[in-house]
C-alpha cells in the first residue's frame, strides 16, 4: 500500500449513479480508500469543485474513476479536464466504457429526442412549442444549459483512457479488486480491462447439453427450467459473449444474462461476437428456415445484441441524413 496519501477523483457524466452506489457497497473498505487517498473530487459525496481541479497542476491526481458517457458539452469539458489532471484515468462502469443503455440513444439524435420529449409526448401542455435552449434571455439576464450532443460517446472516444472497469454496475468486489490493483501497482497493460477474461457461461452453474433450438423465446413466453442452460431453452442469453465478473447473477435468478460486463479481451464488437455465438445454437442448415427463426425470434437486433455497447460498436450510431452527427468543431462550452 502507498506510504504517502495519493489523490483520487471520482466523477460521473451521463450515467445513473448506480456505479457510485456500488462503490459505497464496498462498505467498511471505503475507510481504507480514505486512508490511502485524499479525495479531491467526488461531486456526490465529497467537497471538491471544478475551480479547484482547474487550478491543479497537470497529472497531479493519481487516479480518476470516471463513470458515465459523454452526452453534453459540460461532460466533455470535465472529461478533458480530468484527463489532463490525472495520471491514471479509469473508465468506471459500462457507460464510460461502452456507452451502456444511454448509448442506445445513438439510434436517434438531439432533434428527434427533443421533438418527442418537449413537443410530442402525450400529456404535454406546450402550445408555444418551447424547447430547452443553451441560452435563454429572461428579464433578469441570461440563463444557460449545457449543449446536448447528437451522439453519445464513450469516455475513450473522447479522451485517452488508461484502464476499463466493466459492468452495469461493476460489482463492489470487482471495484475493490481494482482499487487494490491500483494501490499495489499490480495493473495490467495500459488500455486494458481490469477484470477476469472468461465468460459469464464459464461461471454459470446451469447445465449445457449442446442442445440446438428451433425458435427463440421471449421472457414472458416461458417459465424457464432452473437447471438447464437458458440459451438452450431458447432465451437469448448473452452469457457466451459477456465477460465474467458478476458471478452470473442474472442466470442465478432464472433471467438471461443481458451482457452488462461487455466483451472479453480482443473482441471489438460485442454484438458481432454474440451473434456468432447465438447462430451456433440454431438447429437448421436451411437458409430460409434460419432466416425465419431469426426474424421471428429476434425482432429487435439492435436492442438485443447491442443493448450496452452500441456507442462502442463498429456501428456506432444510426446514419444521419447526409451529415455527420457530431461535427469535430463542436467545442466544449461551459
Amino acid at each position, binding site marked *: 500500500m502507498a506510504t504517502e496519501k495519493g489523490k483520487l477523483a471520482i466523477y*460521473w457524466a*451521463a450515467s*445513473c*449513479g*448506480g456505479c*457510485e*452506489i456500488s462503490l*459505497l*457497497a464496498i*462498505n467498511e473498505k*471505503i475507510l481504507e480508500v*480514505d486512508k490511502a487517498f485524499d*479525495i479531491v473530487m*467526488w*461531486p*456526490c*459525496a*465529497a*467537497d*471538491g469543485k*471544478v*475551480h479547484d481541479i482547474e487550478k491543479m497542476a497537470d497529472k497531479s491526481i493519481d487516479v480518476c474513476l470516471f463513470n458515465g458517457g459523454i*452526452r*453534453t458539452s459540460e461532460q466533455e469539458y470535465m472529461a478533458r479536464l480530468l484527463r489532463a489532471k490525472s495520471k491514471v484515468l479509469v473508465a468506471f462502469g459500462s457507460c464510460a466504457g461502452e456507452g451502456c443503455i*444511454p448509448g*442506445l*440513444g445513438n*439510434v*436517434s439524435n438531439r432533434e428527434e*429526442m427533443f421533438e*418527442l*420529449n*418537449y413537443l410530442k*409526448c*402525450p*400529456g*404535454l*401542455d*406546450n402550445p408555444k412549442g*418551447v424547447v*430547452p*435552449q443553451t441560452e435563454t434571455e*429572461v428579464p433578469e*439576464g441570461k*440563463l444557460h444549459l*449545457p449543449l*446536448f450532443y447528437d451522439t453519445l460517446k464513450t469516455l475513450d472516444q473522447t479522451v485517452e483512457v488508461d484502464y476499463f472497469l466493466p459492468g452495469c*454496475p461493476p460489482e*463492489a468486489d470487482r471495484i475493490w479488486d481494482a482499487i487494490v490493483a491500483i494501490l499495489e501497482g499490480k495493473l495490467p497493460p495500459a488500455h486494458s480491462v481490469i477484470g477476469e477474461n472468461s465468460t459469464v457461461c464459464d461461471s454459470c452453474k446451469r447445465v449445457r447439453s449442446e442442445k440446438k433450438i428451433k425458435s427463440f423465446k*421471449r421472457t*414472458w413466453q416461458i*417459465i424457464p427450467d432452473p437447471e438447464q442452460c437458458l440459451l438452450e431453452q431458447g432465451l437469448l442469453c448473452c452469457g457466451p459473449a459477456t465477460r465474467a465478473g458478476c458471478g452470473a447473477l442474472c442466470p*442465478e*435468478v432464472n*433471467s438471461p444474462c*443481458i451482457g*452488462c460486463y461487455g466483451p472479453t479481451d480482443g473482441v471489438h464488437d460485442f454484438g458481432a461476437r454474440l451473434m456468432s455465438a447465438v447462430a451456433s445454437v440454431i438447429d437448421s442448415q436451411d437458409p430460409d428456415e434460419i432466416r425465419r427463426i431469426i426474424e421471428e425470434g429476434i*425482432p429487435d437486433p439492435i*436492442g438485443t445484441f447491442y*443493448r450496452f455497447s452500441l456507442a462502442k460498436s463498429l456501428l456506432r450510431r444510426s446514419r444521419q441524413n447526409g451529415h455527420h452527427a457530431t461535427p469535430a468543431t463542436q467545442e466544449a462550452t461551459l
Partner: protein
Amino acid sequence: MGRTITIEPVTRIEGHAKVTVHLDDAGKVERARFHVNEFRGFEKFCEGRLFNEMPLITERICGICPVSHHLASAKACDAILGVEAPRPAKLLRELMHMGQVIQSHSMHFFELAGPDLLLGFDADPAVRNVVGLVQANPQLALKAVALRKFGQDIIARVGDRRIHPNFSVPGGVNKALSVSDRDAMLAQIPEMIGYVQEGLEIMRGWMESNAAEMERFASFSTAYLGLVDEDNAVNLYDGEIRLVDAQRYELDRFDGRQYLDYIAEHVEPWSYLKFPYYRKLGWPEGIYRVGPLARLNMAEKMATPLAQQEYERFRQLRDGKVVEGSLYYHYARLIEDLYAIERARQLLEDPECTSKDLRATARVTNREGVGVIEAPRGTLWHHYWVDEDGKLEKVNLIVATGNNNYAMSRAVEEVARSCVDGEKLTEGALNRIEAAIRAYDPCLSCSTHALGQMPLELVVYDAGGTEVARAQRR
C-alpha cells in the same frame, strides 16, 4: 444594474443541477431558478425495443432507486399481457420495493440530512458531514450504516443483484424466496425498527428546538399527490392516486393509469426537466408536491401500527392541517422508513411469500400499458404503447423527482429571499439554499455527505458577466 448568482453544481437529480439567483439593483433577490442540466432521451430510444426489455432498460435511469423503475415497468408490462402477476409475485415485488425505500430513506436521513440536523446548519463545514457525524456519535453512525445495508440486503436476497435487478418479468417474477432468506430478513427487523425509532427521537428533538425554522423554512402552499389504499392509507406500492389541496380537501381521486386526463407537463427553456401539474387547475396554479411529506399530507393514515402512532404525532403538528415546511420532509421520510420496515415484516410473515407460484404467462393482449408506483421520491409513471409483436411504439415517463421540479424552484426562491444578501454572501446562506433542495432528496444527493459534503459554490456576476464575488466551502 441587476446581478446574477449562480450555484453550480448543486447536486443531481438523474443528472446535474444548478441554481441561479437574480438580484435587483438593491441587492435583493428578484428571482431564483432551479435548473436541471441533464437529459438522456430515454423515451426516444426505447422506441423499437421489446417491451419485456423495459424493466431492465428503465431501471438504468436511476441507480439510486432502480427497483422503483424496474417495478413500475413490470406493472406496465403486466398490463400489456393483460394479466395480474400471481399474489406471491406481488408480495416479492413489494418486498423488494420496501428494501429500496428503506435503503434510500435511511441513507438520506442519516448520511445526508443528519449532519445538518445533528451538527447544525451553521456548524463548521469542515465537520458538517458524515465524518463529523461519525466522530460526534459513532454508535448512531453504525446504526445508520446497518439500516441502509438492511434495505440493500432485502433487494439482494430477493433478486440477487443489489443494483439494477433482473428479477421481474412481464407477468410476475423469476425467482422464489427461500425460507432461509426469509428468516434471515425477519430476524433483523426488530433491531432495524429500534434504529429508525432512535432516528425519529432525534428528529423530534430537533424539531422542538428549531420550531420556528421548521415552520418558516421553504414553506409554501401546494397540492399534494400520492398513492393510497381504499381507506386513504399511504401505499408505497399500489393503489389509487389521491390529490389534496393546501387545505387537505380532496381535489381528485383517480386510477393512476388514467393520469393523462389529470396531469399535464409544462416546458421551460432553461431546464431540461419538464414541470408536471394538475391539469384541471392549469399552470402554475396546479402545481403539486410528491414524496414523503406530500404522501403524509395527502393520506389519512399509515397502514402499520408503529408508523400510525408516529403519523398521529405528525398530524398534531399543525392541528390536522397540511404541514408545508420543506424541512418536514425529513420527519416524513423517517415515518415512511418505519412503515417500510413494518410492511416488510408483514410481507415476510405472509405464508405465500415463499410460494413458487410466481408467473402468469400470456400473449401480447393490450397495445398499451401503464405502471404506477410510489418511488422513494414520489409518484412514478411508466406508460408504453406496443405493436402486436410487443415492440414499443411510444413511451411516456413521469419520474418522481420531476413532479417536484417546480417545488424545488419555489423552495430555493423562498430560502434565497430570506437568507441571501447580495452584499455579503455567507457560507450559512449557501448551506441553507442547499438544504432546501436536499429536503426533496433529488436522486444522487442520497449519497452526498457519505465522505464529505456536497460541492456548492455561490458566484455573483454583474450584468456583464464579470465575477464580482464568490463564496465557497472550505
